[in-house]
């Protein structure tokens, strides 16, 4: 049985932990609101962009030439996996879930003999994948400096051009992005999305043209030439924004749980402390009384 002093110290220590988790939770809640707004504000653009790409590729038909970003290199040998995670921990299973999906994807690709290269975005993914797949890393993107939506947008554009340059340098054939989609505050869904060759996400509606034929200005290939890199950037940016929102949401939930757990521990410890104190008082009284009786 721990002494009174030990119990007192433990209560104090859990209390200060609780203060920290409580503060972290409130910070995450405030950041979440901003991140969620940014993610939701960017959605209409991403959705429209996807449907424009779907319309355009639908009108072009299958396999008809087109820029390499759309039709691919014709090979399927080298896969580039972009794993997008947070820069920080303290957000529950958020990073671990994304990394789990990445591991599974990489494992499947390697099992069928494909070459895999990895680019990590965010420190946590790099740390967690490093021990197993460290030799496959080709690059890392640090997102810790990009704190607002504008900076993230610049970063996404730069990263998109870098990916494009790698693709043109024939460093890989297929690029897949793995990130956490922000569904709502309680659930973030790890998602794998193919970036190159470009594909509209499943369920994107193409507009029924009612038999009419699209006109293009300038020509169709030229439009695709400018549209596809932007589509890539847009996908990266919305993934980044969703991931940030998801991280804050996961962090808020995790910290909320931690605060509640700390509260439970404190009440259990307080109960134990009071019992121990009462036991000591009773013991002292018995000693005094039996001492008096002995006289």
């Amino acid at each position, binding site marked *: 049985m721990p002494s009174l002093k030990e119990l007192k110290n433990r209560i104090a220590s859990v209390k200060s932990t609780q203060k920290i988790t409580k503060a972290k939770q409130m910070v995450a809640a405030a950041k979440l609101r901003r991140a969620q707004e940014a993610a939701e504000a960017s959605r*209409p*653009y991403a959705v429209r962009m996807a449907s424009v790409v779907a*319309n*355009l590729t639908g009108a072009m038909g299958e396999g008809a030439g087109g820029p390499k970003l759309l039709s691919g290199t014709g090979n399927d040998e080298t896969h580039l996996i972009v794993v997008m995670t947070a820069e920080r921990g303290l957000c529950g299973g958020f990073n671990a879930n994304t990394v789990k999906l990445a591991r599974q994807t990489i494992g499947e690709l390697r099992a069928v003999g494909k070459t895999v290269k990895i680019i990590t975005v965010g420190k946590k993914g790099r740390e967690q994948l490093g021990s197993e797949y460290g030799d496959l890393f080709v690059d890392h993107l640090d997102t810790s400096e990009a704190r607002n939506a504008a900076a993230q*947008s610049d970063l996404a554009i730069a990263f998109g051009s870098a990916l494009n340059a790698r693709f043109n340098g024939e460093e890989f054939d297929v690029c897949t992005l793995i990130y956490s989609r922000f569904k709502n505050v309680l659930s973030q869904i790890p998602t794998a999305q193919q970036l190159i060759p470009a594909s509209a996400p499943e369920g994107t509606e193409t*507009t029924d043209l009612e038999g009419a034929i*699209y006109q*293009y*200005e300038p020509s169709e290939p030229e*439009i695709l030439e400018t549209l596809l890199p932007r589509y890539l950037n847009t996908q990266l940016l919305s993934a980044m924004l969703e991931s940030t929102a998801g991280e804050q949401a996961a962090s808020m939930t995790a910290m909320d749980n931690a605060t509640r757990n700390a509260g439970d521990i404190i009440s259990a410890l307080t109960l134990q402390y009071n019992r121990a104190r009462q036991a000591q008082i009773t013991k002292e009284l018995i000693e005094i009384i039996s001492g008096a009786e002995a006289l």
Partner: protein
Amino acid sequence: MTDKLHFSLVSPAREVFAGEVDHVIAPGTEGDFGVLPKHAPFMSTLKNGVVRVLEGDKVSMRVFVRGGFADVTPDGLTILAEEAVNLADIDAGEISDRLQNARQTAQADPENTVAAERVAYLEALQGAVAN
């Protein structure tokens, strides 16, 4: 009931406008074009310039866009702009400050194409505000 055109203008940062209008004039790379209700399916890239929204014969809104795409489908017109600002919300003084900054950055580093593009954009924006 007269036909209306469903028009939506979105930028990566936000949805700038969505609603029913009569007529939209957009700055295509190969020349400005107008879109009325029931326009044939059409897609064009845009240059920096002003998108004008008309209600009847009156211009009800002018939005400056930095590049992007216009997509006309039977459902309406969608403009995807890299950046879009409503000209009614712009302060001319602020633009000239930003233009000055951008010019300095561009001069300090002539290799920087992003900065040069920035200057071109702000110059066009200033021109649009002045009109």
